[in-house]
């Protein structure tokens, strides 16, 4: 496995206009958008954990995850609004609901999730309106999984080669990565005797995330290359190794050592952030090089036999 040491694909011949890129580089800002991808996953999966904690009587776990859900959603919303070219017009996101626009659908997931998770956390912390608070928490728990995964549709439904070609795997990467982050944060902050579900969620999420991410990376050819080389390649490898190390520590010591649980949890969170930056940067890299746009399209045309395509 010489992964990442050199381009996996031999240099390909293709023509271009002075080597310039064809599609535009996404205008989404770093760190706003990758951070939002992470925070949405963290918040969504924390809301799921919070409902489980409430149902199973784990008050410490419930407190931490309710705050993580509300805090993650609030911070994510700030990041998302900050990314807009006209932040004062963020409410225009709610003018229409368009299934063809994952950003539109996502706004209608994020807005109620933020309100519900915020209400649930406020009620839990203050003790006011406990029944309404629980009800809000249930709502957030239902919206949590879509919140953690829709961001994959956001990236997949673009012409950015690295994102579009991975649209089948990305929802599982993001869902797994979100579960890993939510579980990891709870492992950091919750006593061992209440953190069992957080450990299990982090372990399972990490397994899903690694399997899905590796199935992108291990694909042959140009599709996988942006995830393997340069900065995004490095980020993806760091994230995978961190996730694997955290899983090993969790399995060996997670139930016995508070310190090991906290360190593994923190590693999970850091690896989840790193994954999002890696995937985001891989997309930007694939947009900047015309190779990733032209060569696969040329191959597609060749597969279609080149006939009748350009109506010559």
């Amino acid at each position, binding site marked *: 496995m010489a992964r990442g040491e050199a381009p996996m694909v031999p240099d390909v011949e293709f023509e271009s206009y002075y080597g310039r890129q064809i599609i535009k580089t996404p205008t989404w800002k770093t760190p706003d958008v990758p951070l939002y991808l992470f925070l949405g996953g963290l918040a969504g999966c924390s809301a799921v954990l919070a409902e489980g904690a409430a149902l199973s009587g784990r008050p410490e776990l419930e407190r931490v995850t309710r705050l993580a859900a509300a805090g993650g959603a609030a911070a994510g919303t700030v990041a998302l609004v900050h990314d807009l070219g006209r932040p004062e017009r963020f409410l225009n996101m709610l003018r229409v609901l368009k299934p063809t626009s994952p950003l539109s659908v996502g706004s209608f997931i994020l807005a109620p999730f933020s309100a519900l998770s915020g209400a649930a956390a406020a009620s839990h912390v203050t003790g006011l309106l406990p029944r309404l608070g629980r009800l809000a928490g249930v709502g957030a728990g239902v919206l949590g999984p879509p919140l953690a995964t829709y961001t994959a549709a956001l990236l*997949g*439904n673009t012409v950015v080669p690295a994102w579009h070609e991975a649209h089948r795997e990305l929802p599982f990467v993001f869902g797994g990565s979100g579960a890993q982050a939510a579980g990891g944060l709870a492992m950091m902050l919750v006593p061992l005797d209440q953190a069992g579900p957080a450990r299990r969620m982090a372990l399972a999420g990490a397994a899903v995330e690694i399997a899905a991410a590796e199935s992108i990376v291990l694909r042959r050819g140009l599709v996988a290359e942006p995830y393997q080389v340069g900065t995004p390649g490095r980020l993806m490898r760091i994230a995978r190794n961190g996730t694997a190390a955290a899983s090993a520590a969790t399995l060996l010591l997670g139930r016995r050592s508070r310190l090991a649980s906290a360190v593994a949890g923190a590693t999970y969170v850091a690896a989840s952030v790193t994954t999002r930056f890696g995937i985001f940067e891989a997309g930007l890299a694939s947009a900047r090089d015309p190779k990733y746009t*032209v060569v696969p*399209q040329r191959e597609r045309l060749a597969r279609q036999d080149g006939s009748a395509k350009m109506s010559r």
Partner: protein
Amino acid sequence: MGSLWGGLDDVQADAGYDADHPPRMGFFTDTSVCIGCKACEVACKEWNDVPDDGYLLTGMSYDNTQELGASTWRHVAFVEKPAVDLGMPTVGPPRDADQSAASGDAGIRWLMSSDVCKHCTHAGCLDVCPTGALFRTEFGTVVVQPDVCNGCGYCVSACPYGVIDLRKDDGRAFKCTLCYDRLKDGQTPACAQACPTESIQFGELDELRERADRRLAELHERGVDVARLYGRDPEDGVGGDGAFFLLLDEPEVYGLPPDPVVPTRTLGSVWKHVGYAAAAVAGLGVAAFSGRRR
């Protein structure tokens, strides 16, 4: 919601317009007669009050405009290619004979092409716009409403041609409107009006397609077998372009994608996989709390 891909006879009806809407209007840009004067670029800037976006000597032949963007709605590409083919045996009349001879530059084949927004039948920018700022006009064109756009930038990443972009100091997305204001007054768009060689032809799309087919046949008859139409095919990845081209080389030579596909073509698969993954996350949550172990 209209159809997401494939051929579409009436794009306005698909977008919800009544049957009495005007015909679909578009551009046919015949690059074989483009002389690279950039009158289209200037006319567009002047009429639409598009701001200056810097001046840079690029070294890319006569092209200092570089690319389409938020403040460049027409872009003339210049390609200088050696006309002499070294060593590759060919059959038939000499390629591009009339092109290089006509320009008088023996040894150089000079390609010029005025690029513009394609006003796709299935427009990625319009599909993904979360605010409804981008809309389909009664002429079948695609236009941004600047008073609605909040600068989310999703359209920028959804255009397979790299046309639309955010204006940095403004924050909002801008692109060619196919002179929507002029069309409403029955006028020709500024670029087509300014074009001295009728390289840019404006008209009803159906009529332009027929005209382009005739022009292509004529060029092929004269031995210019490199001529091909780009964006003409209603069955292509974007359902055909409202602004299409006659090119004299492969599209990527002009900076155009060889086989553009609207991203929403895979929308069903995208949402399906998100659904599976969301269900998996919910399953993880349930599983985390079941079982005996703490």
